[in-house]
């Protein structure tokens, strides 16, 4: 397969087949916490996409240019967390300066992206899957963010409509949200094995 097909396959794979939220169960906290309204969920998804693209690419570079040559793979976790925290800070400043309305609506969630395990998870997965070229790492990072956005927006759409449904009293609130998340995961499992 030529490079383009490989990249396209990698992208589709990370967005729907190996979706970090729905099949790896990473980033469940914002997935359940910020999925009350579609517009908020979309904003959160975009912020995560931005951070994960930067940090996924950067961590691949740091891993391959610094850590592997120096035989320091053991410090991966700390270095990756450093990169993610730095990227989040950068995004926060940028949004605060140029999109004040978005900044106000994010509130506490923006700094919380730092501890979003989908991002650290992806950085480590890129390494685990043995991705050995920069374009693929970048595409995978971007795709992971898009996958997160898709998952959280679908969830928010369902939850918005769930507000109008006649849910049994004992299931209202968190229980029905978890059940919905489970069913959504089952639906996405149908894609498993589509690309080998």
């Amino acid at each position, binding site marked *: 397969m030529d490079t383009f097909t490989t990249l396209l396959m990698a992208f589709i794979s990370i967005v729907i087949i190996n979706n970090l939220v729905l099949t790896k169960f990473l980033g469940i906290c914002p997935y359940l916490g910020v999925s009350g309204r579609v517009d908020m969920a979309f904003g959160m998804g975009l912020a995560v996409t931005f951070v994960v693209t930067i940090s996924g690419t950067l961590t691949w570079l740091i891993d391959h240019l610094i850590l592997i040559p*120096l035989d320091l793979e053991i410090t991966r976790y700390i270095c990756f967390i450093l990169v993610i925290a730095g990227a989040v800070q950068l995004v926060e400043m*940028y949004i605060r300066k140029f999109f004040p309305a978005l900044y106000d609506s994010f509130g506490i969630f923006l700094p919380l992206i730092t501890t979003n395990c989908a991002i650290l998870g992806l950085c480590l997965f890129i390494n685990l899957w043995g991705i050995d070229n920069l374009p693929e790492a970048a595409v995978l990072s971007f795709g992971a963010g898009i996958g997160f956005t898709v998952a959280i927006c679908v969830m928010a759409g369902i939850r918005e409509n769930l507000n109008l449904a006649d849910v049994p009293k004992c299931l209202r609130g968190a229980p029905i949200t978890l059940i919905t998340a489970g069913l959504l995961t089952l639906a996405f499992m149908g894609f498993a094995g589509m690309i080998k």
Partner: protein
Amino acid sequence: MILADIYQLWSSIWPAGVTMLALGSGFAIILLIASEKLKVEIDPKIEQIQEALPSLDCGGCGFAGCGQYAKAVLANPDLLGKCAPGGQKSTEAIAKILNLQVSDSAAPKRPIVHCKGHTKDKTFNAIYQGIQSCIAANALSPAQACKFGCLGLGDCVSVCKFDAISIIDGLATIDYEKCTGCGACAKHCPRGLIEMVPFSQEKMMTVACSSKESGKVTRTMCKVGCIGCGICVKMGEHFTIENNLARVDYENYQPSEKNQTALNKCPKKVIIETGKKCKA
């Protein structure tokens, strides 16, 4: 032996330490540059005003939260005094920050529910089993005979941030001890039953009904509906009748013996006293 071990340990640790240090400093420099380049100037007054506000983010002032209101007040001092939960204290504190004079403000506003129909008093044509919200029930269903009365599905309860309103036997009931007067319930009642009224007295007299139907129709729909008989207008001082519905003149209301007589003589017992220390 031990020294050799320590030396070996040290020689394997220091590259990691140096790398981390280098990476950390690299990011620190990038962030430092970014923080200088992307600096946002914030007026310190905004923070001061925010501290003077109760930080409840109730939205009663018409802005998204206390932060938004603080900015708006700074830009436009005419908006002073919109914070109901903060009351006079907040207003004075903000006025001091902005170097303004405050005039004596009017009596604080509190909501009054203009309905007295508990489930046992109301007539139902059918049992409503649709979407459990007043907006939906009001738009779709004629299940409850009275078109003006409380639906009891709790739209007001869900918007109240202070847990000050509850549905008791199918009727929205306000806990005046907890209420801050933000007005969210009044905005969200689809039937406009909840009115923000200036509480000049500790206890306010009110007509707990909104039915504009004629007395004959009201009688068939509700056991405690105002029939517009006009006894209160004759007996009391601050009552008027409009569209078959008695109303209290809240602006000028004073407790008096005549008003008390009107309350006692009301054939439907629909005139009630509300406020703190009143039985719901």
